[in-house]
């Protein structure tokens, strides 16, 4: 898979780090996000009414509002406004919506010269490339690459080496174009229905010049950009720069209520003072549907319309950081939320082309300023893509992968989605299954049939599962402090039995009566393959199996963070509200539970004393989204360990993702960031622990040191 090199990594990670710092400086960040979300929910709910209101506001102001059904309709209108009689210069400020409709090409048909004035967009126009990032379109281009491009195209007399020289050159070139321009075209970050005010969030000043320097202003925007009132802009103005590039606010937030009063000047005028020059301006707002009104009716895609295009979901995404928006994007949009946009605007075929790069790690959930559940949108689209595909299923392998889906997802997805069946078979046939899996011919078969990369080690199944080990066993705890079910997740039960055993021992040492009953797997595996029906069936069976234990007063303790995240987050969409609430409120991550026991008087001296042992700890992506990283660190420190934590967003393994041949290289490249952190002088001699199964597998393949789960540190 094509990756875009260092520039995109450095820049997206820089933006992401900037976001963490900038939002930390915003008082009541969570409540500002909630305000923003509520405004968007309300606006999309009332959209037809707001469009009507905006239309009369714009017309009262002396402008025109055109509601375009699709790209062709929008372009036809813009062509009419610009006119075909004379060839004109149209200057543009950055607008993803104008990229979506390809308005430049439409205007060029009539002989007009269309000039992008945002420096990044201009670089791409000169290079004839598409944006690789929705906010910083030329993020993949290094300074050297831009120098090379400009020298080749413009043959400048003075050398262009520094960023200052390149910027001055572009400013000069584009300044001339803006001075001779006839029409200014902008996008709109927001439009208020009450006053017809367009908010443009920029830093260069080109959007200001695009409007102030021309006598015809065309603003193109998706219908979803309307908010009810001017006051509603406030949370967005506070959030958009912080969430995107990590700036508290961008240099300019233009609040334009066209037609703007600024005089329309002729540069050569040496006579007339500005205050005596007319300010007659034409103004057109072109609102674009292009699939959005249908998205509004779609319960799963609707949230996409709340997106304010800040790019936080791109910057936070470990895979995006690696591959950039050309690979992780569709016709126009890129990053996690692009799946929703491209599915709604272009269709499933385009969205399906990059959707599998979302691993569901959920780091974008916290980063999104309007709290969009981006992983869920990706899951739903994957499910729809699966159902859309015709697949020839091998009968033998089909028997291995029974599932409840109406239509068949591709074989590879069925295999990973039904990993519970694989694990059961693996344990039943162990050690023969492990021997078989190691054979070259088997690996070649797995590679050919299922796209499982031969460079990955396969899990070793235990014939005697964790459940088998603790079945029928009486608790050694006489007067229990708490009573709990240890949830035997698929991996702990069949593969990583040691961490399950360690968990039981720790809990019992702290006075907990523990049982390890047989419980179905959570459905994380099928969900990650977009097999929602199968995942829902798992959720219902897990809920039914655990309900009697919860009713009996037992807590549910979970080792695997991705399964706890299922119970807390995704089950909300898979179960009825009461069942979800019951399981979510009674479930705890193992170290969170230990933290709670110690905080409530359990004796930490009954656990192993760390005696200052140096630990390097990698938390799990979904665990961090649930704000549960700190509990592990606190427990380890209380037990006398010295803990250093990683700060990468994801290990890159992400369940089945790293096993798939087509993503192996991306997975390893993402993991290298974690490897580098844990190989640095401050970490290279530390014992490595990680919370997630996938993280442990990835670390095992990246480091010489063998990693373990933190719970295993607490027993001798």
């Amino acid at each position, binding site marked *: 898979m094509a990756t875009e090199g260092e520039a995109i990594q450095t820049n997206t990670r820089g933006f992401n780090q900037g976001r963490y710092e900038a939002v930390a400086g915003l008082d009541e960040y969570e409540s500002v996000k909630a305000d923003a979300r509520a405004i968007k929910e309300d606006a999309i709910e009332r959209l037809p009414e707001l469009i009507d209101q905006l239309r009369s506001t714009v017309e009262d102001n002396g402008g025109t509002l055109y509601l375009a059904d699709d790209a062709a309709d929008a372009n036809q209108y813009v062509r009419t406004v610009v006119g075909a009689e004379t060839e004109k210069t149209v200057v543009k400020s950055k607008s993803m919506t104008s990229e979506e409709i390809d308005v430049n090409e439409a205007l060029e048909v009539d002989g007009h010269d269309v000039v992008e004035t945002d420096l990044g967009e201009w*670089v791409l126009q000169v290079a004839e490339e598409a944006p690789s990032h929705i906010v910083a379109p030329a993020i993949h281009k290094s300074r050297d690459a831009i120098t090379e491009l400009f020298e080749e195209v413009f043959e400048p007399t003075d050398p262009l080496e520094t960023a200052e020289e390149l910027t001055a050159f572009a400013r000069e070139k584009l300044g001339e174009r803006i001075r001779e321009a006839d029409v200014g075209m902008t996008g709109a970050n927001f439009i*208020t229905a009450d006053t017809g005010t367009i908010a443009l969030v920029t830093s260069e000043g080109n959007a200001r010049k695009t409007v102030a320097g021309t006598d015809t202003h065309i603003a193109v925007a998706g219908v979803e950009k309307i908010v009810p009132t001017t006051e509603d802009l406030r949370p967005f103005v506070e959030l958009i720069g912080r969430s995107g590039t990590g700036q508290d606010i961008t*240099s300019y937030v233009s609040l334009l*209520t066209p037609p703007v*009063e600024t005089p329309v000047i002729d540069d050569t005028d040496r006579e007339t003072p500005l205050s005596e020059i007319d300010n007659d301006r034409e103004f057109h707002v072109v609102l674009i549907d292009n699939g959005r009104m249908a998205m509004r009716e779609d319960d799963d895609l609707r949230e996409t319309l709340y997106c304010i295009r800040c790019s936080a979901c791109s910057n936070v995404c470990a895979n995006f950081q690696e591959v950039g928006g050309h690979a992780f994007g569709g016709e126009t949009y890129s990053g996690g939320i692009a799946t929703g946009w491209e599915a709604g605007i272009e269709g499933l075929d385009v969205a399906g082309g990059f959707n599998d790069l979302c691993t569901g790690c959920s780091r974008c959930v916290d980063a999104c300023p309007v709290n969009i559940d981006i992983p869920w949108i990706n899951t739903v689209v994957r499910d729809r893509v699966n159902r859309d595909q015709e697949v020839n299923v091998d009968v033998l392998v089909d028997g291995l992968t029974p599932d409840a889906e109406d239509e068949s997802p591709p074989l590879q997805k069925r295999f990973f989605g039904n990993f519970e069946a694989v694990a059961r078979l693996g344990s039943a046939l162990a050690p023969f299954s492990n021997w078989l899996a190691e054979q070259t011919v088997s690996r070649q078969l797995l590679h050919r049939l299922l796209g499982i990369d031969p460079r990955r080690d396969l899990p070793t199944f235990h014939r005697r599962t964790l459940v088998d080990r603790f079945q029928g066993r009486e608790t050694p705890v006489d007067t229990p402090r708490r009573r709990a079910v240890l949830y035997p997740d698929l991996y702990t039960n069949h593969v990583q039995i040691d961490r399950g055993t360690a968990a039981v021992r720790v809990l019992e040492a702290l006075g907990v009566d523990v049982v390890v009953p047989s419980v179905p797997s959570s459905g994380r595996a099928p969900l990650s393959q977009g097999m929602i029906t199968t995942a829902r069936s798992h959720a219902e069976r897990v809920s039914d199996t655990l309900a009697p234990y919860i009713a009996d007063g037992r807590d549910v303790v979970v080792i695997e963070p991705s399964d706890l995240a299922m119970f807390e987050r995704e089950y909300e969409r898979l179960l009825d509200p009461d069942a979800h609430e019951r399981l979510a409120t009674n479930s705890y991550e193992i170290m969170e539970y230990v933290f709670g026991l110690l905080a409530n008087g359990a004796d930490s001296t009954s656990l192993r004393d760390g005696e200052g042992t140096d630990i390097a700890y990698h938390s799990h992506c979904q665990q961090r989204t649930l704000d549960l990283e700190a509990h592990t660190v606190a427990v380890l420190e209380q037990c006398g360990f010295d803990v250093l934590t990683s700060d990468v967003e994801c290990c890159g393994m992400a369940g089945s993702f790293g096993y798939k041949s087509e993503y192996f290289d991306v997975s390893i490249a993402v993991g290298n960031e974690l490897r580098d952190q844990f190989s640095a002088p401050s970490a290279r001699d530390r014992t490595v622990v990680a919370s997630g199964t996938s993280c442990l597998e990835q670390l095992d393949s990246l480091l010489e040191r063998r990693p373990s789960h933190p719970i295993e540190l607490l027993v001798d």
Partner: protein
Amino acid sequence: MSTEQQLFTESLASVGVETRRVPPAAVAEAIAELLIGETVAVTLDHDDVSLPDTVTIDPTPSELHAAQTGITPAAFAIADYGSVVLPSTAAGSELVSLYVDHHIAIVDEQDIVADMEHAFDRFGRQLSETYGSAIVATGPSATADMGSLVTGAHGPSTVSVVVVEG
């Protein structure tokens, strides 16, 4: 100095903007020290404040394009962001603040609001009454599109703010 004024000065410094706080009678002198090259300005709607004699008030387009410094009033300022709110007027305030390399904004001390919430209370009232336009400007024009952060992309590369006491 008020709390807002103090915060405003600090916020401006953090976005690379120099501030002068002076009584009305000293504005001309303070501005004179900040001028770079040919200077243009829009007429200040402020009886007690005057501009240095060298400044071209209400310039022609050709004078505007020849100028390096532009002086305009700000409608108000937002203390915790270090932002000045520049109205787009028929007198060409937007042009004078934008087509120059150095922008000097003049704001009355009493027009400094604490935060964005107060700013939008004010925008909401003003825009629904006047249907006007304004730019919330914070620091100089900037871009990171050419490989590293550069100030002075299409707009001013430096900004100064003169706060008029009162």
